[in-house]
């Protein structure tokens, strides 16, 4: 999962991206969450030998990244992390699945390779969609959207608290980890014993922090209930956004858009 400092920076970066003020950022988070869900469901529901049919789906991340002013290289870098694992998992397919599936010109391509690439493409698409969603919406807004759409409030509160304190805890964790680093040499000092002790201390401090937060909550009259603030409105723009993209995804799911484009092109050329 990378270093703790790196993760901390990642969070801050993604969080900051979400504060942009493009048109996409301004949309009600519910619309964005729903569109992403439709996207992911469409992509994931393809049969395993589909490949060309998946490619048109790249239009969604491309457009949203552009409209949302997200740094493409950054997103690509983060999504690329997904690829090695998909490779390892999918790598087995060409080994076990040797049956020739398609002839391209004079090339005989076994089904295993097709499903392999399909796996990788699907991983990239879904991971990308999730990251982009976070980048144009922000995690807290996503949680509140989910809550409005039916997620239990207790879980939404948990997610919000978790997110909020990840910033604090990763910082503490990196400080503690660095302190240990500076006093260890090679692998000495980094064994299980010091790890257990390090975590124990961190855990205790975390527990005490929880008590102080609780104190602060009580001091401001908390009696167990959280009151939500109703900010966003689901207006015409959101409906257009939602219906537009969903229709496109469903269409591309049911009809191979690559096929259509290709036929069109070759038809014209002929």
């Amino acid at each position, binding site marked *: 999962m990378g270093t703790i400092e790196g993760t901390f920076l990642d969070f*801050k970066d993604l*969080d*900051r991206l979400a504060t942009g003020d493009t048109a996409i950022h301004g949309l009600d988070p519910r619309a964005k969450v729903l569109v992403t869900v439709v996207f992911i469901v469409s992509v994931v529901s393809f049969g395993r030998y589909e490949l060309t049919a998946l490619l048109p789906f790249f239009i969604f991340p491309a457009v949203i990244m552009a409209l949302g002013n997200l740094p493409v290289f950054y997103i690509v870098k983060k999504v690329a992390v997904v690829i090695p694992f998909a490779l390892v998992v999918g790598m087995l397919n060409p080994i076990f699945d040797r049956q020739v599936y398609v002839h391209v010109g004079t090339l005989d391509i076994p089904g295993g390779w097709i499903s392999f690439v399909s796996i990788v493409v699907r991983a990239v698409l879904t991971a990308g969609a999730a990251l982009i969603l976070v980048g144009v919406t922000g995690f*807290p807004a996503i949680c*509140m959207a989910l809550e409005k759409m039916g997620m239990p409030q207790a879980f939404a509160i948990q997610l*919000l*608290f978790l997110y*909020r*304190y990840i*910033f*604090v805890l990763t910082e503490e964790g990196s400080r503690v980890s660095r302190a240990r680093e500076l006093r260890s040499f090679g692998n000495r000092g980094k064994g299980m014993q010091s790890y257990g002790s390090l975590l124990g201390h961190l855990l205790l401090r975390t527990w005490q*922090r929880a008590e*102080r*937060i609780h*104190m*602060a*909550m*009580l*001091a*401001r*009259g*908390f*009696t167990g*209930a959280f*009151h939500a*603030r109703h900010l966003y409105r689901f207006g015409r723009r959101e409906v257009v956004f939602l219906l537009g993209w969903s229709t496109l995804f469903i269409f591309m799911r049911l009809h191979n858009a690559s096929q259509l484009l290709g036929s069109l092109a070759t038809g014209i050329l002929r």
Partner: protein
Amino acid sequence: MSHHIVEVAGLQHVYSDGTAALRGVSFRILHGESVALVGANGAGKSTLLLHLNGYLSPTSGFVRVGDFPLTRETVTEVRRTVGMIFQDPDDQLFMPTVYDDVAFGPLNLGFPPDEVEQRVMKALATVGIEHLQDKPPYRLSGGEKRRAAIASVISMSPAILVMDEPTTGLDPLARRQLITLMREFRHTKIIATHDLDMVFDVCERTIVMHDGAVMADGPTREIFNDDRLLSECRLERPLSMQGCAVCRKRRQEI
């Protein structure tokens, strides 16, 4: 209508492991006073503060806030009157945005949304951070966090402000801004702190604690002139009262 806003009498508190944190503390604070609570670490300042809004219960003695003796039934009412600001702002800013944190108190008190909005904007304006209202707390600087924490409490319009080490960790400018802010507050203020120079600037009265008991209680200037008392309680004069730093050094070298 009593003018004694906060009264503490014979307060004793013993922790579950037997340590006596407070050994018979008594004082009366009047409406509008700014009182500093100073003492060494472990003198019992924080423990005392936690009694003032009912988070801790005394082993004996009582606390009275306004007309209410502090009991389980009156705790909610007391917390409306006594606004407490803790040492670590990260512990108090737990909502997704500053606005949400400042609105947390009034919402819990049951005010309708328009009133909540009014209170929040007023509190934010008072501490000067309206422009930060939609920011999440982890993106604020130390000084901004402190001010947000203060705003989150004053939005409940407490009569009494209790603060635990408010100037810790602030850069000089942020600290100066905070001191200016505190001087402008018309609330009754009880401030536990090590920052004796801030005490000098903000509080006309000082209570000195040592080992769970009150050693002295009087005008700040008098207290800070009593060197023997100060050194007994592991304190010293505020730096601004210690004379010219250069001359002092020269005197020491001689």
